[in-house]
């Protein structure tokens, strides 16, 4: 036989150490930024404020949980705003409210979440059947969601009087509002799905090497649709939570959550190209973004500058995470 140009190969474990470093970045950044603000403002480090930060993170955490699965596949989802608006209106019209005599309670909430799920399915179907890139498919679905929400709104704001749903935002358990616990449960569920279900693992794998799955005889399409549906359900729940917070169904319930959620997920270490990151990463990212938003108000940065400082810090955070692994001839899109 041929003697080829090599004899043994020393296993190279460098990648693994790189991965550990990468995963540690966002939590370290979280601690550092928290430390800086805590040093600058005594108000910031009060227990009340920490509770406040965590409470304020609840909705974003749920939405980010959903979007993480989509990002893991390497797709993108901009439908959160529309889906949340539609879900908010739906739930506020189905639980006890001032517009009609409905009082379905939990069932109403379930319907709103399922509606979110259905919108997610629509995005997935447009991606899989019509082959429309997810960026555009979800943008379209978002517009449809807003339209549906506006139809349901019909000119009069539905205020909810359902004590359970209103209680979610007000009642507290161990110092945190029920919404926060719901968000924590969502993160846990998200993590379990990601770690222990075929859906979660395949979403991860699709981001890693979609064509390999096809070659291994996995039918990828249903999983893609399911992932979008799962994300839609999370947005639906997010819409319900916003409704609980505001005590009313707003068409604008989801305004801005799409880009915030993507920002949070990316800051947490989920790659836009897919195949890396996860729900726990995103949870850290959400806290990071919330600490930043809250901290800037606490140290008294002018409201004009807040958006700018946030943008700068997000870029800096990603740059800090990226620079250690910079190589020449690296592809960055």
């Amino acid at each position, binding site marked *: *036989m*041929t003697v080829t140009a090599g004899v043994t190969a020393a296993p190279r474990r460098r990648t693994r150490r790189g991965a550990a470093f990468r995963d540690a970045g966002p939590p370290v950044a979280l601690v550092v930024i928290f430390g800086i603000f805590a040093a600058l403002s005594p108000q910031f480090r009060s227990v009340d404020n920490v509770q406040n930060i965590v409470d304020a993170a609840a909705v974003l955490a749920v939405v980010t949980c959903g979007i993480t699965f989509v990002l893991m596949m390497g797709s993108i989802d901009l439908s959160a705003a529309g889906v949340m608006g539609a879900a908010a209106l739906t739930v506020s019209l189905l639980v006890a409210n001032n517009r009609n005599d409905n009082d379905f309670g939990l069932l109403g909430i379930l319907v709103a979440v399922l509606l979110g799920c259905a919108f997610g399915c629509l995005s997935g179907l447009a991606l899989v059947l019509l082959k429309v890139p997810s960026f555009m498919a979800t943008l379209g679905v978002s517009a449809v969601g807003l339209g549906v929400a506006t139809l349901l709104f019909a000119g009069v704001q539905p205020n909810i009087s359902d004590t359970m749903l209103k209680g979610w935002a007000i009642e507290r358990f161990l110092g945190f509002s029920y919404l926060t616990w719901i968000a924590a449960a969502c993160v846990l569920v998200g993590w379990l799905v990601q770690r*222990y279900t075929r859906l979660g693992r395949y979403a991860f794998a699709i981001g890693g090497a979609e064509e390999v799955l096809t070659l291994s005889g996995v039918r990828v399409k249903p999983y893609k649709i399911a992932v979008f549906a799962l994300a839609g359900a999370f947005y639906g729940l997010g819409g319900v939570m916003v409704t609980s917070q505001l005590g009313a169904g707003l068409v604008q319930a989801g305004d801005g959550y799409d880009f915030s959620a993507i920002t949070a997920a990316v800051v947490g270490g989920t790659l836009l190209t897919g195949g890396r990151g996860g729900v726990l990463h995103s949870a850290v990212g959400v806290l990071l973004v919330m600490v930043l938003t809250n901290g800037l108000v606490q140290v008294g940065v002018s409201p004009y500058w807040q958006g700018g400082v946030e943008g700068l810090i997000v870029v800096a955070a990603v740059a800090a995470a990226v620079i250690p692994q910079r190589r020449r001839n690296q592809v960055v899109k």
Partner: protein
Amino acid sequence: MNASTPALEVRGLVKHYPGVKALDGVDLIVRQNEVLGLAGENGAGKSTLLKALVGLVTPDAGEIYVRGEQVKLRSVVDAADHGIGMVFQEQSLVPNLTAAENIVLGSEGAAVRRGVYRWDTMRRLAQEQLDKIGSDIDPLARTDTLTFADRQMVEIAKVLRIEERSQHPPVIILDEPTSVLESKEIETLFAQIRRLREFASVIFVSHRLDEVLDVCDRVTVLRGGQSAGEVATAGAEPGELHRMMIGSTGSDDHYHENAAAPVTAAEPRLSVRGMSGKTFHGIDLDVAAGEIVAIVGVHGSGREDVCRALFGAEPTTAGEIRMDGKKIDLPGTRAACAAGIGYVPAERKIEGMVGPMSVAENMTLTKQRARCTGPFVAPRKQAGLVDRWIERLSIRTPGRDTAIGRLSGGNQQKVVLARWLVAGDIRLLLLDHPTRGLDIGARSEVYRLMRELAASGVATVLLADSLEEAIGMADRILVMNDGRVAAEIACPSGGKPSPLDLVKEMV
């Protein structure tokens, strides 16, 4: 089914593509517990035949029999259900999943209940497969942390899952499994194949005919979409196979050694002193005009990085690089191009060419002066230039505007090479596995081209596919070991060292 029924039989398989008859009535028999070699030049139909066997291509005519029963294979899953599985040349593992998940992917069975993973069961199932091939890989390691060879083992373990699936002895197809392996890893692989033979049939495909003869019981040769013959490997010669593949007697002077011109230049064209980087240290290297210097070394010896550093694609921390006596700085690939350095990357499909773009565009991507008048592209000038080089390198393409992705590997490689030649200002060529994945005919043409370039005064650094290639082509060989130059061995025509001389220095 009795012991003499073939595990797999193909009769009169035909497949047309627009303008090409890829398969023209191929017959093939794979016996039980046999390793069958499949040889043939590029375009002989091997690829289409294998695709048909795993259900990726539906043949236009002909029959496939598995253990005596006629079957229709519609998908990879279909093929797996009939016990046929393939280890793809470009590895088909999901990098960010664990080895265990990759092994059971698509047929999780008991490892997934109602969509929920049972990690313990999965680990056990994967371990069973790994045990079959005697591998000690941790099933729960992430695939992208494994070495290439380990990943190949995972891939074989994955294919062996079809044994449980079909409840029959499987037929395993190995497509070019050795092309990126180092020799030790190849030894392990061959041991593996012999072990597989105990309970399975194997189809082994390789361009390296000596490997085919070494590991196979029998070889079927394809030519022009037809079966050109069959050879029992016992006592067979590579030359004989080669003749069957190309239909005539191959040249004995495979490496065109008689075309090698003696190196006369006194001043080195490229002179590297004390170059260090992340994976290499204190590299000294001289290459004279017209000289071919091969760098050999084991996987991880740092030779790839040295090559890339010379092209400015890998940062250096110390050292000095001189071209024709003038010190140059290589902060990026642009500077290297400007200095007259060219680079042919190993990963042709990803790094070498832009698949959807035309032959003409790929060929003129680098050197603008050759096709431009002032800052503008001169369409006629470009067309003339490209056509001239298509002819000169006898690149087989329907036209200069054909997307390069549609050409065969050898022709793609020639276009990539031509990219550096069109301007006529090339002084140093860095060839990283320039013949990887090419068949004998195409290899030979690349070798001839290298000789011509050397004769015209181009200095060449070669990272060869095999030690034999290095010895055959090089005037001098540098052996790298653990990021340093371990030895320098002269390698003149007529005074070639033996592979063993090199191996001594490599470990």
